[in-house]
């Protein structure tokens, strides 16, 4: 177990360094921050000066090395545009994104799994056909359009939900949570639905497919032969086995959720990391982009680790394998 975690950590480090490297490589091309930093009347020598002061004139590998060295200490420098510590900016925004992603993930799971189960158990029924078809809308409409439509209907026309922002937040330590107040919950409804719809569809279809597979297995047939009730078979046996593969995908999707939050955050002016990132892209704010990407990679790696550990909880076969057996 320890070895397993250690190995994952090692892999994580490799993955993150690579991510940082690629990210850094890409940044060379996304725009020139100096142009944004200096005002309209900057003279060429000013530009040169700033460039060298920021270390942008050094060879790529030297820059990368510096970046790595600092990143290891959690130091990503100052945002070129906002002049504030990147780590602080991200820390301020991180709770917003994470809360949004978590609520969306919960929504996707809590709605997607039962719907998938229903569609599998009632395969071919009208209700399940309807679910399956309607759910396709979720994957065929761009997120931004869904967001705007939700705003149009629920904020502008009906006035039920606010159209932007996080509402009131409460500070719990460094974590600013919107989930402690009614207002915060009120604000998270539309964005989380927008963000969840795509994943919900995916999870629902996945659960259905897996469930159908599992329902055909011998142990389900045997469970029937033992005279277990349908409830015990479907929810005790089938569902648990379904969740094993579903977990992997859900884990990966959670990572995607955080990334997809960029669009939801843009539409709903949700003050999360995605919004920060997309602004940073517009202004070639390299430190912010780098920190964001590294964080995303970290989250991804962490989620993967958690999923793997969950596997251990769910699937006893793996416990032995990891304990060194075969």
């Amino acid at each position, binding site marked *: 177990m320890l070895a397993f975690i250690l190995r994952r950590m090692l892999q994580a480090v490799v993955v993150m360094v690579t991510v940082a490297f690629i990210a850094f490589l890409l940044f060379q091309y*996304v*725009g*020139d921050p100096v*142009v*944004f*930093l*200096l*005002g*309209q*009347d*900057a*003279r*060429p020598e000013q530009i040169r000066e*700033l460039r060298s*002061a*920021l270390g942008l004139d050094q060879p790529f590998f030297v820059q990368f090395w510096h970046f790595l060295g600092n990143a290891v200490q959690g*130091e990503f*420098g*100052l*945002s*070129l*545009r*906002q*002049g*504030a*510590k990147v780590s*602080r*900016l991200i820390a*301020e*925004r991180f709770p917003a994104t994470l809360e949004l992603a978590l609520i969306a993930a919960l929504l996707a799971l809590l709605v997607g799994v039962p719907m998938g189960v229903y569609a599998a158990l009632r395969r071919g029924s009208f209700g399940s056909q309807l679910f399956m078809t309607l759910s396709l809308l979720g994957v065929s409409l761009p997120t931004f359009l869904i967001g*705007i439509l939700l*705003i*149009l209907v629920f*904020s*502008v026309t009906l*006035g039920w939900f*606010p*159209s*932007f*922002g*996080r509402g009131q937040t409460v500070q719990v330590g460094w974590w600013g949570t919107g989930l402690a107040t009614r207002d915060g919950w009120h604000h998270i409804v539309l964005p989380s639905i927008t963000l969840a719809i795509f994943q919900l569809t995916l999870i629902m279809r996945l659960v259905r497919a897996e469930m159908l597979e599992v329902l055909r297995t011998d142990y389900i047939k045997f469970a029937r032969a033992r005279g277990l009730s349908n409830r015990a078979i479907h929810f005790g046996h089938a569902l648990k086995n379904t969740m094993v593969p579903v977990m992997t995908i859900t884990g990966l999707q959670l990572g995607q959720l955080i990334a997809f939050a960029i669009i939801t955050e*843009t*539409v*709903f*002016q949700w*003050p999360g990391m995605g*919004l*920060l990132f997309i*602004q940073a*892209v*517009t*202004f*070639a704010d390299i430190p912010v982009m780098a920190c964001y990407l590294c964080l995303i990679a970290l989250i991804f790696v962490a989620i993967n680790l958690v999923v793997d550990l969950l596997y251990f909880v769910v699937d006893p076969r793996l416990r032995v394998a990891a304990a060194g057996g075969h």
Partner: protein
Amino acid sequence: QAVRIANQGDALSMDPHSLNESLQLDVLGNIYDALVLRDKDLSLMPGLATAWKQTSPTVWRFDLRKNVQFHDGTPFTADDVLFSMARTQADGSDMKSYTNDFKAVRKVDSHTVEIETNKPFPILPDMMSRVMIMSKKWCEDNQATRPVDRRKGIENAASFRANGTGPYRLRERQPGVRTTFVRNGNYWGKVEGNVQEVVFTPIGNDATRVAALLSGEIDVMEPVPLQDVDRVNASPNARALTGPELRTIFLGMDQKRDELLYSNIKGKNPFKDKRVRQAFYQAIDIEGIRKTVMRGASSPTGEMVGNGINGFQPDLNKRLPYDPEGAKKLLTEAGYPNGFEVTMNCPNDRYVNDSRICQAVAANLSRIGVKINLAAETKGTYFPKILRRDTSFYLLGWTPSTVDAHDPLNAIMSCVDDKGAGQFNLGAYCNPKVDELARKVQAETDKTKRNAMIHEAFKIHQDDIGHIPLHQQALAWGVSKRVELVQRPDNNISFKWIKVKSGA
């Protein structure tokens, strides 16, 4: 009375010297005062200075206002002015250009300062309206004597907190999320409005911003996308406030290179030929653009500065007629009977409907046989590229930050040198006569003489068709019906002029 304001962007820092950007300076203008302020009609009015005059061609003297306190209670004195002027020259300051030409700033007494410049500097008071005065003591106490220097990676208290003399104090600051202001009870001046608290929120997405206004979540927002003006006006609780803006949108053409980049014409540069430039000019259906692309919210212009700028010449504000036939003929005369192909660079998120204007222009030009490859991109990549002058044909918008004609004369119409002249003259239009006049304008202190010189320079540029001016875009603010405010053509929202109707 509280009012909630949304803008598409946010002030990036609370430090008035860290970024020379109009939104930033406008927002901070509510907290900080400059020596000179601008009134509702953009005319200068006393700020922290009660009076100013030129004591010699290179010296200006400012009498400072007495009994003014910073928000933290420290009194305002000449030392603060000296300190602030010096701070604008420190590393990390983005305001250097305003004070670059200063030779010395001298304290005459505790409430009088003198500024000596290298050359005669007639528009110094205009410049001073952008330079905000900070408290020397507060900055020293907070280790903020310089603006934040990003290179060192050290943050600076002044980026997050503020201590000015202005009509509002900063209460809470969450970058990119919300900034809250409260009324400064000790303000030295008169506050016409009745707003006690202002919540300023950036909302980047147009549709969301409109939705927030329509659903009553915000009271004032800027800008209203042109296509939504009608919708806002139709709503029961909001209206759109429109007016001309000082920004002039124009097209530039590369007139320097011997061979045009990104074109199918090899070995020569068609834009060097005035007839080609004129053909382009006359091929553009500016009325069509005004009606459809701008939904009527633009004023076509023939001049590189808008009405409201010092030096605007009403008689020159006439466009060449829209005349595709004539344009075609000009093109044929110039030797391009079948037109030619060229890439046009265009931002897609900087000006009002920018990429759509470009598309319309491209469509117009295709009528005279010119095939435009449109490269529309986000400002993040657009500006670095065109500032490298890596372009043949581009669209740009310009607001003279000093509200004076000298600014575009120098930045856009002068030949390019390495001292900042012609810095945004990206097509390198060059006419020594204009340069000559621009230099004279800068030093001339006599209003009428100066105006005549500006007229002459503009005329030359116009006759050369150095650039193709398109229009002045319109401001469009969305305002709740319970709010009344003053719309200044420079897009400044001053909290002190906002009135909220009671009972609403």
